[in-house]
């Protein structure tokens, strides 16, 4: 297979167009990947600034800096931005960059659709952020927007929120259709499904989950829109509906969504650990089956988010046991990562440090998840800081660390330059210490009964909250170091070799091409049917 890269200017097979229009009109998977990654980086600082406001308010008990109304807006938008504007776009950006390179494809399958999926994201978030300037303020009902808070008691800007969620959903669905089509249709000859790199596998399954659940989210917000403006009664018991119905529809989307934000991380961490252990990944096929079973189970566990709404006992039991089942495939993955490192020739470059921290800290988040899965115990944990600690452990040292690790791991391949290892390690240790300082004490205050989403708290929580806030400020500042390191790499970095990491050549097609990877990587697909000779 070869590719025809059509061009209006006749500069066949050459580099990118000049100027800003390159980014507006581009159909190149690398350009679009970079757009996604920079967008998510910017949103990380926007959402992070909101987290800083939250932690400043909670630094001491009592009303400190912002009004409770504004605090609610901060909590809501922090969540929405971090989930839909940071973690998801970053993974899609990585998918755009790496999937064609890892499977030996000329580009994504549907390049123009790819551009559209990206450019409607800034539109959606522009709308969401502009609600801060509108009458009634930004959405204030939490990122899970439970009815009737988000329907009967919502500010008028909820209408814009609803449509911007529609657009985010459209972006995810189009992006996923593109990714799934690319993976199923564009692999180099000889790359059978069970020979695909694990990052590609993780994204194949993630894309499937996205296409399956984003439309359900669209359905949920559409029902909200109808209830608010057109007199329907989906979520109003007075008309025969049920506010709990909202939670069922939302979490039917929401739980697979949680795995959408972690499965690609599994793929990334697998690659990094095998590279820096200088061993092939342990238990490749069990890794694939584990990801697939986690994804399938994710459809039947949703109501563990709502144990306290008053479900029949049979429901509580079903969702409790099905949730606990997820620990098995997840345990398989952790076991495989540890076994890959076992007796490997380990070195601890920045990506590896982040990956190991991922394995350790994600496991902590997973274990607190198991605690939450126990229905009777959940009645105490529900809506406390214990839950906040749990999901921040899986999302920050989990998903976010894997993204940071991926950036350090592949940045030399993208830019052709090495990042500053000392700076990278400093960034890692600062992040590692501060992330634990931030989120570990939340377990204690949560178990002691501190509720989430409240701008004030009882005096006995004061000490821990101050530690948490200091940790959060430190974590926020450390990420500026990350930005600095990326910029330094791009502008002043030392040249990287094609292999970048010792022995990486056997770890995937992306390490067989130059650094930086050419603008169009594989105009002719590598033929993998012949035996490979790796020196």
């Amino acid at each position: 297979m070869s590719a025809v890269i059509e061009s209006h200017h006749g500069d066949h097979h050459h580099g990118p167009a000049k100027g800003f229009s390159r980014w507006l009109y581009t159909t190149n998977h690398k350009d679009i990947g970079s757009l996604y990654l920079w967008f998510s980086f910017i949103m990380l600082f926007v959402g992070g600034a909101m987290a800083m406001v939250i932690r400043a308010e909670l630094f001491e008990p009592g009303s400190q800096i912002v009004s409770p109304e504004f605090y609610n807006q901060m909590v809501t938008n922090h969540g929405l931005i971090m989930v839909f504007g940071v973690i998801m776009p970053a993974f899609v950006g990585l998918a755009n960059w790496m999937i064609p390179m890892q499977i030996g494809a000329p580009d994504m399958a549907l390049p123009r659709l790819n551009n559209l999926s990206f450019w409607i994201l800034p539109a959606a978030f522009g709308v969401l952020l502009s609600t801060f300037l509108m009458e009634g303020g930004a959405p204030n009902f939490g990122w899970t927007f439970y009815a009737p808070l988000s329907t009967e008691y919502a500010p008028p800007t909820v209408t814009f929120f609803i449509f911007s969620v529609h657009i985010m959903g459209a972006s995810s669905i189009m992006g996923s259709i593109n990714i799934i089509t690319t993976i199923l249709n564009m692999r180099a000859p000889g790359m059978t499904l069970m020979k695909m790199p694990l990052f590609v596998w993780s994204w194949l399954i993630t894309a499937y989950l996205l296409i399956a659940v984003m439309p359900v989210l669209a359905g949920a917000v559409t029902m909200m829109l109808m209830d608010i403006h057109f007199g329907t009664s989906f979520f109003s018991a007075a008309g025969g509906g049920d506010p709990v119905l909202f939670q069922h529809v939302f979490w039917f989307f929401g739980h697979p969504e949680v795995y959408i934000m972690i499965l690609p991380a599994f793929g990334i961490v697998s690659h990094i650990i095998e590279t820096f252990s200088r061993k092939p990944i342990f238990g490749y096929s069990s890794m694939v089956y584990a990801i697939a079973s986690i994804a399938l189970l994710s459809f039947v566990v949703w109501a563990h988010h709502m144990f306290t709404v008053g479900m029949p006992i049979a429901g509580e039991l079903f969702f409790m046991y099905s949730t606990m089942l997820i620990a098995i495939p997840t345990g398989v993955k952790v076991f495989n990562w540890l076994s890959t490192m076992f007796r490997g020739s380990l070195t601890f470059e920045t990506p590896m440090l982040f990956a190991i921290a991922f394995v350790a800290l994600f496991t902590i988040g997973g274990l607190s998840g198991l605690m939450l899965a126990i229905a009777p115990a959940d009645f105490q944990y529900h809506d406390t800081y214990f839950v906040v600690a749990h999901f921040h452990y899986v999302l920050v040292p989990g998903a976010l660390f894997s993204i940071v690790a991926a950036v350090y791991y592949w940045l030399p391949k993208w830019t052709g330059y090495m990042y500053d290892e000392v700076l990278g390690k400093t960034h890692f240790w600062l992040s590692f210490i501060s992330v634990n300082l931030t989120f570990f004490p939340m377990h204690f205050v949560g178990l002691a009964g501190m509720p989430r989403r409240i701008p004030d708290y009882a005096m006995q929580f004061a000490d821990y909250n101050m530690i948490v806030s200091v940790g959060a400020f430190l974590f926020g500042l450390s990420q500026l170091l990350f930005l600095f390191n990326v910029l330094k790499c791009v502008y002043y970095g030392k040249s990287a070799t094609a292999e970048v990491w010792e022995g990486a050549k056997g770890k995937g097609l992306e390490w067989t091409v130059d650094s930086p990877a050419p603008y169009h990587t594989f105009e002719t697909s590598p033929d993998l049917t012949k035996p490979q000779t790796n020196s």
Partner: protein
Amino acid sequence: MSSESSYYVPASSKLPIFMAISLLLFVYGAGYTINDLGKEDTYSHWILISSFLLMWGTMFFWFSEVIKENDAGMYSNQLNTSFVHGMSWFIFSEVMFFFAFFLALGYVRIFAVPWLGGEGEKGIANILWPGFEASWPLMETPDNERFPGAHHNMSIPPITKIHTWLPFWNTLCLVTSSGTIALAEAALKKGNRKSFKAWMVATISLGYIFVVLQSVEYYEAYAHMGLTLGAGIYGTTFFLMTGFHGFHVCLGAIILTIMTIRGFQGAFSEHDHFGLAAGSWYWHFVDVVWILLVLVVYIF
């Protein structure tokens, strides 16, 4: 410039960014229009209208470009497979959109309404509206002043009066049209263009008859049955489910109308007619959703 073995990658395109702008306008337009409902002298609907014009214009040029590229022979078999995958996964996403509404209907009928009526271990909800009796179709809502229930519902009449029941004719239309479009495709594949065109015209006619009958049904519901969006959960689920389905029938009918016009202009060949095939899959999907709707919304 192409051969069978090469994958076409456009270098750059202005179309997506125009689409993105139209969606941005759509969000502001729709948001302000809905928030301003009932207000006088508002201009927000013009934003909405302009967003649609830009969207449709962009789509027109986008599809024209794809057709031009295909006619120029730039698309390989592999690229066509990408289109097949793309359309199939898009339809899967639509299936899941409807799934959300089926889920809602199921939850309401199996759990929410019986619990409100005092059934089961969660029946304490009956304390809120004592005396409320659970039934389906729900004609009397718990708070009948706020959500006045309908006096008639759309359920299936006795079999002897089936001909007076619009959904019966609607089902007939859609199921038949799924057959006629299959015949149209088969005729095209055999190169029989005359019968292809005839079956296409039959298909879209049946589609439009469906839309008209559905409108009549809605008119009847509002004018004579007290069945409205505000008529409690029965009206809510009835209109949202049949409404979204009807919207998809309209979309499908528009797609197939365009395909028919293109067919009359001489487009499509025996082996190269993906636009038509995709439209036909979409039509079958709409048909299947309708059958499920008839079962859970009208009959059971």
